[in-house]
């Protein structure tokens, strides 16, 4: 990958990774639905050391008017990193990377959200990364999906996301910042668990066809783990643990 040379040991002889995880172990994930009073729907996610807050508005009037579509509603996503979310101050103006991630997340959510029910309206998703540690786009997508459900926007399915990757010639689940910088491949995957469809698939790095297949499989299995936590977050808010 284009990152730095691997100076650190990403995997020791016991198969443990640099933060002590096994190859198919995700970081600690905590999702909370709700929390913002003024937004129609919101969620907060802690994905390892990532901390992300998402607010959803809508369906609501489209401004500027010319963006509205008479056939369907539109989805607008803004992914934004706080200046204090990374080690060195990040300029708060939207960067090339943030614009790309906004687009990627929007397109990963669109197959799930039933916008055609609300012609001439917009659904706005605001994603604020408070603290970043690799894999923010997956964490943000996971949280955005919970926030959309919290806002009551009709959805065909939830979207869960996690990254798979390759480090020290081994396929791993949930790539952290160090592994992203020094590893061999990073593959973020967004997945609709009930429809069994992939909505986001990116790949940065080089994989053999076998490794590619394994990576997708590991990622999809990881998404199912994330989905359970999304479900739990919504059950906790709406049914007070009574949900099945």
């Amino acid at each position, binding site marked *: 990958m284009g990152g730095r040379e691997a100076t650190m040991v990403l995997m020791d002889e016991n198969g443990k990774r640099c933060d002590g995880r096994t190859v198919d172990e995700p970081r600690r994930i905590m999702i909370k639905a709700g929390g913002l009073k003024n937004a129609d*729907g919101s969620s907060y996610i802690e994905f390892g050391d990532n901390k992300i807050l998402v607010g959803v508005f809508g369906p609501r009037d489209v401004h500027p008017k010319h963006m509205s579509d008479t056939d369907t509603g539109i989805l607008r996503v803004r992914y934004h990193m706080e200046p204090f979310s990374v080690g060195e101050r990040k300029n708060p103006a939207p960067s090339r990377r943030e614009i790309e991630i906004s687009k990627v997340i929007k397109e990963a959510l669109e197959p799930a959200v039933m916008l055609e029910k609300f*012609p*001439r309206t917009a659904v706005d998703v605001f994603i604020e990364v408070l603290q970043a540690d690799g894999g923010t786009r997956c964490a943000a997508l996971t949280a955005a999906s919970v926030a959309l459900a919290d*806002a*009551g926007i*009709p*959805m*065909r399915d*939830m979207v869960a996301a996690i990254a798979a990757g390759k480090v020290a010639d081994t396929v791993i689940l949930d790539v952290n910042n160090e592994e992203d910088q020094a590893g061999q491949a990073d593959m973020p995957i967004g997945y609709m668990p009930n429809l069994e469809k992939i909505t986001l698939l990116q790949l940065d790095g080089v994989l053999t066809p076998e490794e590619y297949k394994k990576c997708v499989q590991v990622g999809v299995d990881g998404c199912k783990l994330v989905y359970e936590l999304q479900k739990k977050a919504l059950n906790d808010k709406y049914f007070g643990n009574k*949900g099945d």
Partner: protein
Amino acid sequence: MADKRKYVIPGDVVTTGPFRPEQNTVLDGNKIVSTTIGISEIYDDSVRVIPLTGKYIPKINDLVIGKVNSHTSLSWELDINSCYVGFLPAQDVFGRDFSAHADELATKLRTGDLVAARIANFDRTRDPLVSISDRDLGKIDSGVLMEISPSKVPRLIGKKGSMIQMIEEATDAAITIGQNGWVVVSCESPEGLLKAKKAIQMVNEQAHVANLTDQVKEMLDKKGES
């Protein structure tokens, strides 16, 4: 009647088989999938999910409370707490012989006025058309506006209006509930108004509680003594 109630989130399979998907469900192959967070109910031949969250979507014949946003020389625009604005034509208020030259819309309804209105027509191609030409509809002169979640309106009304009747009887308040989640409470006595507001707030916050009617009744009775 409804049986097999289940808590569902988007993507959950409610049931499989020959059912008609209604409110908040879609058919995917032979699976009926929920599209929102809510409680699923299976009837003899149909399946629906009662939503627990979400914005108000206008439905024909719904009674709504609207707030006048602005007007042109031919119509008013009402904020009906939805993603669409309610469209109230002047003919509806002035009658058929309305003339844009002779009649001034501001004499009847001004910006900020509250009206009780009915959704006369609505489809996906245009904004909802509302009407105030019916009994019990029209400008609301007195009362306090409260906002509750539109998904909790059925709970506030209760089975055959039991909840709202109880609150009205206990407080002597007149309560107008719009399906869009706006509620107007008017009451002669300040205590009654306060109590009614508290009861509505309670329903809004604890809509999921099972024996809510009893709890609200208890609250209303207790406050009455002190």
